[in-house]
């Protein structure tokens, strides 16, 4: 008699079943919040995490270098300098071999570029940018294994709440709440910034913890195959995830400290 078909299943958080796959190949996403008033970030208590293997994961670090002295000393009479440098002025003197021609000839082949005015300086950097494709594939329950984790990711990407009214109405509402006895700071915050921004998240992948991050874009291939109940069975979700701020060497070192109390970047 044949043995019954059994496939071990497990895992925590919202995920498809990836039993047997190395944990290093599975990325974890979870919401983070600031630890008190510090610059450290931690997982939001009792929050759900989303786990998915990444089909693609590219990290772009763009660093801005500029040459601020590039045009120093070159801006005055650029055309005249160019004519002198090229030797075009010699023909204009009309005295081949004469004193004027020799004088003008001294400028030919010279340039105003120096090491100083070609030196680059660090002018800033953009936040880290991850381009990932998270894979969700249902083994037995598409609603739980595909739909639920994708819904969670989408929710993290969207603003927490957008105020219904305009700024003027929000200001009036803040004044009204303060008059009703609410703390002034809370009322002022609601009055000036009435809506809630999207969640900050962390991404833990291959021994590194990248946090705080924000989901800059997420694409949902809704035309993916569905089961008899209309739930997607298989979905590869491209996302662009950026760090909240630019990072430095210490931040990168902290990201690799998996066992640290507050792994990730400071921001």
């Amino acid at each position: 008699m044949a043995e019954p078909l059994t496939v071990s299943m497990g895992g925590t958080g919202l995920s498809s079943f990836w039993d047997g796959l190395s944990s290093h190949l599975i990325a974890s996403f979870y919401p983070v919040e600031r630890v008190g008033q510090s610059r450290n970030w931690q997982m939001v208590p009792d929050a759900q995490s989303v786990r998915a293997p990444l089909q693609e994961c590219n990290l772009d670090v763009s660093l801005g270098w500029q040459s601020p002295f590039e045009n120093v000393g070159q801006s005055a009479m650029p055309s005249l300098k160019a004519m002198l440098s090229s030797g075009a002025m010699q023909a204009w003197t009309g005295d081949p071999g004469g004193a004027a021609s020799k004088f003008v000839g001294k400028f030919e082949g010279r340039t105003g570029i120096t090491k100083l005015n070609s030196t680059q300086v660090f002018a800033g950097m953009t936040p880290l940018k991850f381009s990932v494709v998270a894979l969700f594939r249902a083994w037995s329950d598409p609603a739980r294994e595909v739909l639920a984790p994708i819904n969670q990711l989408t929710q993290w990407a969207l603003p927490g709440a957008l105020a219904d009214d305009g700024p003027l109405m929000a200001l009036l509402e803040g004044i009204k709440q303060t008059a009703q006895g609410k703390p002034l700071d809370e009322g002022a915050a609601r009055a000036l910034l009435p809506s809630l921004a999207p969640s900050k998240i962390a991404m833990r992948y291959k021994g590194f913890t990248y946090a705080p991050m924000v989901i800059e874009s997420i694409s949902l291939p809704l035309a993916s195959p569905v089961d008899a109940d209309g739930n997607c069975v298989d979905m590869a979700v491209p996302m662009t995830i950026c760090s909240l701020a630019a990072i430095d060497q210490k931040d990168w070192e902290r990201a690799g400290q998996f066992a640290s109390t507050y792994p990730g970047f400071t921001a």
Partner: protein
Amino acid sequence: MSHYNNVAESLSSQGLLGSIRSGLNAALGGVTDSATQALGGGKLAQTVVGMGKSAGVNAGMNLVNKYIPIQAQRAINVGAGAVGDLMNGDWNSAGLRVLDSGLLNELLPGFGGGVASQVAYWGTPTPLFGGISASEAKRIYDQVRNERLAKKNLWLLEVTSALNNGGMNMPDRFNLFATEVEYSPFIIAGDKRRVGGAVVDAVQGAEPIELRMTTLDDQAGSLKMWFEHHAAAVAARDGTVGVPADYAIRIKLVHSFITAESNRGGYQSIGLFRPISLDVSLSRREDGLQELAMAFSQLDTFMMP
């Protein structure tokens, strides 16, 4: 080391006459040691007694040479060496020692010559056997013959799935009807990256297995129905798809044994597959059994059934 081992080692390495010389040396050595001690143990005493010992050993060996011809001495040495080899359990060395000496042929001219030529044949490396002797070739042949080699026509196939709670399973019929199975159990994919004039191998990982199976079928089309149901569970006619938990097909292939009861640790491949295609070829040109060519693709390479 026991006395037996001492005798065996001595005979094997020195032959009988060598052992006699050693024995004389040892016996006279004991006497001369006593004489040296009696004479005070000085340098002169050692020299005088040593001269006497050499004379004694030479006198003893002269007696041996006088009464035993040199031909016979060689025979005795060969025989004693062979006995020593046998006592050491080294039958090969014993036989070769006799053969190398040519003594067998000399002692037994008619019979010995035939045996010697036979033995020379069996013991001489020859290009006909790839540079080894006939006895070595026979040993290799016997070694191969004694191995229980796997046969390609003996295998046990077990195909099951959870479709309809296992209601579609008919493992016995599958095993009975399957005539051929082809698959590559391990496929490793990788790239070759050129670095200057050299090439660096970059492994990408394992590839899913594709298993092809040829089966017969009954008149009711049981196996065709089985495949059709599983194919529909993967991709239904209405455009929807199923989930692997429903349609995953567990294929177990045991090599070299044809029943589970007779299986004595045969190599087995187990994997989870889904149907790819079913090829059927019908022809009225000849009277033959219908054959189904089924193809299956492995599901997740990391998922163990």
